[in-house]
């Protein structure tokens, strides 16, 4: 193997983000440093076989400052929020919340894989809910497939038809009534949260 190959695979110490662990720990309740690397989280995780790095490694890599590798991993997106790790962790680390904090950071920094369905779904979901106040499943999935792999939509056509004919697919979006600055207007609330942050 040529020298350049393994050299490229190495993350050099100067590439680490030494604030990464502290920031994630602060966002998720400061228990990250208590991890004893027992692996209970990975062992009980229903999706760990499909992950780039199972949850135990994500915790170790986060503590060591491997920000880029962690945020680019499929692990954080495969986490389906089943909370098994969170309730089993002997050190009470809220691992599911750590995954959420990592997802939020990956979206903020736009470092997730571009045509990867899960972050695309999350962003489209946020947009639809902001617009209608409610989710609209058929539009959400259509948008996700168009932005990732339209071919997959063809594969799902039969399922869509069956849902339609059993009355389980809403064609038009359901919208909340409070709008335009009226009492209870959702956009007013969300904008107020945005302004508070900046």
């Amino acid at each position, binding site marked *: 193997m040529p020298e350049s190959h393994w050299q490229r695979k190495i993350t050099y110490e100067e590439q680490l983000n030494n604030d990464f662990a502290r920031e994630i720990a602060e966002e998720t309740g400061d228990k990250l440093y208590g991890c004893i690397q027992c692996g209970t989280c990975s062992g009980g995780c*229903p*999706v760990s076989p*499909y992950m780039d790095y199972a949850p135990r490694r994500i915790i170790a890599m986060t503590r060591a400052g491997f920000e880029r590798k962690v945020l680019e991993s499929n692990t954080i997106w*495969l986490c*389906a*929020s*089943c*909370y*098994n790790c*969170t*309730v089993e962790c002997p050190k009470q680390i*809220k691992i*599911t919340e750590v995954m*959420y*904090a990592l*997802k*939020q950071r990956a*979206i903020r920094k736009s470092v997730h894989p571009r045509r990867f*369905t*899960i*972050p695309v*779904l*999350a*962003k489209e*979901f*946020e947009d639809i*809910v902001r617009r209608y*106040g*409610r*989710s*609209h*499943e*058929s539009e959400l*999935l259509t948008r*996700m497939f168009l932005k990732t792999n339209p071919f*997959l939509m063809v594969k*799902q056509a039969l*399922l869509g038809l*069956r*849902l339609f004919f*059993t*009355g*389980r*697919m*809403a064609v038009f979006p*359901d919208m*909340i*009534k*409070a709008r335009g600055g009226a*009492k*209870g207007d*959702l956009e*007013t*609330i*969300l904008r*107020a*949260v*945005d302004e*508070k*942050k900046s």
Partner: protein
Amino acid sequence: MKYLYFPGCSLSSTGRAYGESILAVFRALGLSFAEIDDWNCCGATSYMSVDERKAVALASRNLALAEEQGGAGPDGEVQVIAPCAACYLVLNKAQHLMDESPDLARTIKGALAQAQLSYTGRVKVRHPLDVFVNDVGLKALGEKARRPLKGMKVACYYGCQIVRPYATFDDQHNPTTMEQILKALGAEVVDWPLKTRCCGGTLTGTIEDVGLRLNYILLREAKRRKADLIATACPLCQFNLECNQDKISDQNKENVAIPVAYFTQLMGLAMGIPDRELGLQRSFVPVRVAAA
């Protein structure tokens, strides 16, 4: 007691039969309830992946609306029933996060005030399993069984978010409220250890291979334990387990077909409510009751 009802988005689309059957059962039991006016999406797992503060604000708008509509005295609790597991968790989680972080609570309350809403923390979010067992009571339920579910062997499936991370009304590792309800209505329940194992949530739509595999594990185990059907308490679990069975059977060269009903549909059947009022015509795999 009067309840407020938070249906959530899925109960008017893929989970329509859950909404239909739960309302039919509420009426049959004479429960007094009103839908929260102008409720919005709870945010589910996806919104939380994008922005935590806005996700909590989104959920809190519903809590504020409930408080206003509930109108109990200053100390009185407002009871909100949330049947969807995701809604149930998110509404509870928003309360927990605000309790843990005064800074977050201040931001959210300030934002709600901009839209002339307020939230003081008087809402108690409850799952219908909790309400049926602890408020209505198993004895009263049993007395309503006009057509008991005799001979039906049910695998009760809770999924993740009803018992994790907060187990407020049932055992976290081995919940039994659904079994208690269905047994009171005459059904048999099978013992199965996967009742809180994850169905994959949205993974069946985003990374199909992973999602289908998780559901294969569940369906296969239910069949192995000779269940006649699986009962669920979450619209996404029900969709995942029921609507992908063709693909799962094909992929694994094994017939995994089994009816998947909402536990409220089974309650309704036992109470003699007509099939159509329970949304049973919406099932992909027909739910049949053995002739009495």
